[in-house]
C-alpha cells in the first residue's frame, strides 16, 4: 500500500528552465509534507516543507504547492541548475514528527 507516490522515476531539464516534481498521496490524515534531496552516498537533505493549512510555500528557487482536494503536491525549482541534479523524495507525516512516509524518489538531471 503505497501511501505516497512519485510516479515519475526520472526527469530531465535544461539549465535555466523550470523543474516540476510531482507527488501524490492517499492518506488524508497527513498534515505536513516535506521534500528531501539526496546525492549518491549521502543521506537525504531537507529542502522545504508545507503544512496542510497552506497551499504554497516558497524558499528561494524552491516552491512547494499543495492541492489537498487532489491529494497532490509539487516542487518547482526555478531556474534549475546542474547542481540540482539529485534524487528528490517527497515525504508526508502526521501527528508525531519524524514518522514520515516517503515516495520512491525522482531522479532529476539538469543539463548545462
Amino acid at each position, binding site marked *: 500500500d503505497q501511501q*505516497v507516490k*512519485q510516479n515519475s522515476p526520472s526527469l530531465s531539464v535544461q539549465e535555466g528552465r523550470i523543474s516540476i516534481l510531482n507527488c501524490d498521496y492517499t492518506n488524508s490524515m497527513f498534515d*505536513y509534507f*516535506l521534500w*528531501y534531496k539526496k546525492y549518491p*552516498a*549521502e*543521506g*537525504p*537533505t*531537507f529542502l522545504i*516543507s508545507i503544512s496542510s493549512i497552506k497551499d504554497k510555500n516558497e524558499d528561494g528557487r524552491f516552491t512547494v504547492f499543495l492541492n489537498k482536494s487532489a491529494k497532490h503536491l509539487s516542487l518547482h525549482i526555478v531556474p534549475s541548475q546542474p547542481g540540482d541534479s539529485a534524487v528528490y*523524495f517527497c*515525504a508526508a507525516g502526521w501527528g*508525531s*514528527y*519524524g*514518522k*514520515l*512516509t*516517503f*515516495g*520512491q*524518489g525522482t531522479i532529476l538531471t539538469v543539463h548545462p
Partner: protein
Amino acid sequence: GAGVSQSPSNKVTEKGKDVELRCDPISGHTALYWYRQSLGQGLEFLIYFQGNSAPDKSGLPSDRFSAERTGGSVSTLTIQRTQQEDSAVYLCASSLDSLGAFFGQGTRLTVV
C-alpha cells in the same frame, strides 16, 4: 560532530549473523529516527525515539530488529539472524522536535 554520524558506512555480513549499526545524532537533538532504503524503494520508517518517551517501534519489520538509544544520545540498531532481504541502506536522522530531520550518510548493509 556537526552532523549525524553513522558507522560503519558499509557492512557485509553472512546470512544468519547478527549486526549492529550505530548512529550518533546531532548534539542536543531530542528526536532520533531510523529508516531504511531498499534497492529501488523509497525510505521506509523503522523506529522513532523522542526524549524519554517510549519509542515508536511500529515500523520494525520483524522481531529480529531492535533498537535502543542510550542516554538520549547514541542509538544502536541491531538485526539478529540477518536475512538477504535485510540488505539495504539504513539511515539515521535526528531533529530538534521540529520539521526537517537531518540525516546521516547511511550504512549500506549487504547480507550474503
